[in-house]
């Protein structure tokens, strides 16, 4: 097939993926709202089909441009879809209780590819000389995986915050159990002991679900969501760290300096610092739980700024990435 047909095929497959993910999200949402197991299973099938189309779109694009399919913002967006949805499918296989979260994974994938295709699309073409290096395979791939999974982690933190709100309202618990006040070491220990006891109680009560009143009652417990958000962050954070290091090595060989506070570098650093703060906060009395989750929300904002705002509105060395 000629490169032009390949490029056209890629575009068609990308829209097919958006469509499948949207249908899949609707099915998962239906399952969540009406406890229809068939809808969840159908959603899985549609999501798998969508992933096939999405991966096909990436491969066809790569064949059309004769290079890795992540050389500009549109292709990055398509790859974000591939990474988030496949990460989600792997989770569902390993932990079935994650499935109700499908709608919150597929909708961002729809948004990412949709915005990419409508706003950021550029025709398939070769790379500018600065991008023409073996490092694009390593640095950008790591950045795509790291940022996509960190996005998912932050979305889980948002879900945790909402679920936690409902749980607290249902239990009539007063939130400031561990916040403020005493600072000395032994009080911290007491607070931590109480906090861990409460956590275990919550975990124990998770086994006997109360009759569902809202959709949120059918979501995993706040503790599970918090745990999921943490594990996801812990998985992606080293990848993001590696992406930054690989980028620095590339910058050293392309521009003669490993770090120059270029806007993209700066925002990658900000994102890294915010998620580092999240990991620290989760191990700090008075911050774990909701405090940490709010930091993850800041991390999500930093990721979005880094991708959309910095690439489109800020002039920098990474601007050639192409809109």
């Amino acid at each position: 097939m000629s490169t032009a047909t390949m490029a056209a095929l890629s575009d068609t497959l990308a829209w097919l993926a958006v469509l499948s993910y949207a249908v899949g999200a609707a099915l998962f949402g239906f399952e969540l709202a009406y406890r229809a197991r068939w809808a969840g299973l159908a959603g899985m099938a549609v999501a798998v089909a969508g992933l096939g189309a999405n991966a096909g779109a990436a491969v066809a694009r790569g064949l059309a441009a004769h290079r890795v399919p992540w050389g500009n913002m549109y292709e990055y967006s398509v790859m974000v879809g591939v990474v988030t949805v496949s990460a989600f499918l792997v989770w569902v296989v390993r932990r079935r209780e994650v499935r109700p979260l499908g709608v919150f994974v597929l909708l961002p994938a729809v948004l990412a590819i949709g915005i990419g295709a409508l706003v950021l699309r550029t025709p398939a073409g070769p790379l500018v000389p600065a991008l023409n290096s073996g490092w694009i395979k390593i640095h950008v791939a790591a950045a795509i995986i790291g940022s996509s999974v960190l996005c998912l982690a932050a979305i889980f933190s948002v879900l945790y915050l909402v679920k936690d709100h409902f749980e607290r309202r249902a239990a009539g618990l007063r939130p400031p159990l561990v916040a403020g006040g005493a600072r000395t070491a032994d009080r911290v220990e007491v607070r931590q002991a109480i906090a861990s006891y409460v956590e275990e109680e919550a975990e124990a009560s998770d086994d006997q679900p109360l009759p569902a009143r809202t959709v949120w009652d059918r979501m995993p417990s706040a503790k599970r969501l918090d745990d999921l958000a943490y594990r996801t962050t812990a998985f992606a954070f080293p990848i993001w760290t590696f992406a930054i290091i690989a980028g620095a090595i590339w910058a050293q060989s392309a521009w003669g300096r490993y770090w120059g506070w270029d806007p993209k570098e700066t925002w990658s650093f900000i994102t890294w610092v915010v998620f580092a703060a999240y990991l620290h906060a989760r191990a700090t009395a008075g911050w774990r739980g909701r405090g940490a989750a709010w930091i993850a929300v800041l991390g999500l904002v930093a990721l979005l700024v880094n991708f959309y705002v910095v690439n489109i509105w800020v002039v920098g060395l990474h601007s050639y990435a192409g809109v």
Partner: protein
Amino acid sequence: MAVQTPESATRPGPGQPHQSLGLAVRQAWREFRSMRTALVLLFAIAAASILGSLFPQRGISPQRVAQYLADHPGVGPVLDRLGMFDVFGSAWFTAIYLALLTALTACLVPRARAFARLLRARPPRSGAALSRYRNTATFDSALPLEQALAVAGRVLRRRRFRVAVHGDSVAAEKGYLREAGSLLFHVSFLLLLVGLAYGKGWGYRGQVTLVEGETISNTRVNYDAFTPGRWYGPEQLPQFSLRLDDFSNSFWPSGQPREFASRLTAVDAEGRTQRQKVGVNRPMTVDGTRVFQSDYGYAPVVKVTLNRPGGKSTVPQDGPLLTLRDQPTEVSNGAVKLPMLDPQVGLDVTMFTGFRLTQGPDGRAEIGNDPRLVNPLLVVFPWRGDLHADQVQSVFTLDRTDLRPLADRPLLIPLGATKELPGGLGTVSFTGVRQYTVLTLARDPGVPIVLAAAVLILLGLLPSLYVTRRRVWVRAVPAGPGGLRIEAAGLALQGKTAFADEFRDLAAELGREVERSPRSGGRDILGSVDAGDEAPARSPSE
């Protein structure tokens, strides 16, 4: 991980006032190295970086800073005073990261000491009855006590636990790599800073421009821009010469740039010759100095001959004229300044690489340019008046404030042609096209240290996130005639869910080894609080 500080013993009780300054200082110090402070400083550094990305930075583009100052005469100077145009080199940014690193060191020292103590000490016996743990198992065994404990020790060692025997019980612990990794991760940031400071202080960066065929020596005067470190002087520049043998650039059929590279010859002080094609992403190293391809441009060879009174003629310009290339059209602009004439004359020179006239949609002719060097054409606009050549100005442009056009039509000079300047001033010839390259030369002796630090950061990060610390105790209690009841309990400080499975496995193996199957096992839901002295999973980096 618990960090016992000596200060905590002398802390005043609640309600008791701080009587000495020393106590207050200690209190402040403890607060300073707490995780809370670290979080605040992390947020501060993130917020400061945002400022650095909002305002143009001198280190990245001084032109945009100048533009900003010109556009905002009111707030501009104030922002400048606050260091907003050099955020990452400002005193307050330095203060934040130094405070962060000081707090980091202050918290690392006690942690490292505690970790060293932990490594020297044997895994401690359980402070509580084993039945109170979340993960428990009990077996019967006919083995003698010592042998039963030896079997338990063997099973645990096989699973890479550190094992200690305390009388009738065995204590085992594993997952030390978590704290070791976390310490390595944090210490590596100090190393990173050392490498950064060393490279910045003892290195330099500069830019040189070389026309094809030209040779320059690596001395300060040949640099267009030169940024040395605090402890690096121009006299330290290694002695070598650099020659641009040939420059090549190519384009995709769409006109998009494909590649550009300089073929360079370097000759060092000992006369060793080094030839390399230096392209984007393909630097060259000469005597410890790295040479990077940055930019390029065109230098049309222009000869200007002026008719002077008395039938004589002078040639004020004969050679490559540096021009500034516009992207992506590849049309370049330059200027020839003739201040010796009265009135002064300036030539505005535009070079097309592939001049072409096309018919626009409305039928009018449109000027286009092929980025490839297929049809070079010079377009020369002569101007007359005052050049202001005594003032600091760009070599690429004319200051037109006091200039008037000398002719109403420009001179179009194809390659190899000569055209008359109006008014019998003289002639302009376009005799050839050469290209010039802009190279970045840099020396950063800190790079190996920074790279090592980055690798260590990653190596430390992985175990600090994924390894979990867990303890297992096995106790043998005499039960019945010649029999033993073997109790086992396990505790994980992190990853409790995964440990429940691991403990079940371990208990099953232990049961087989003591030749009895487990009598009961798994989780006891009622009243299962992790034993008191172990329960608080203290923050990993207080």
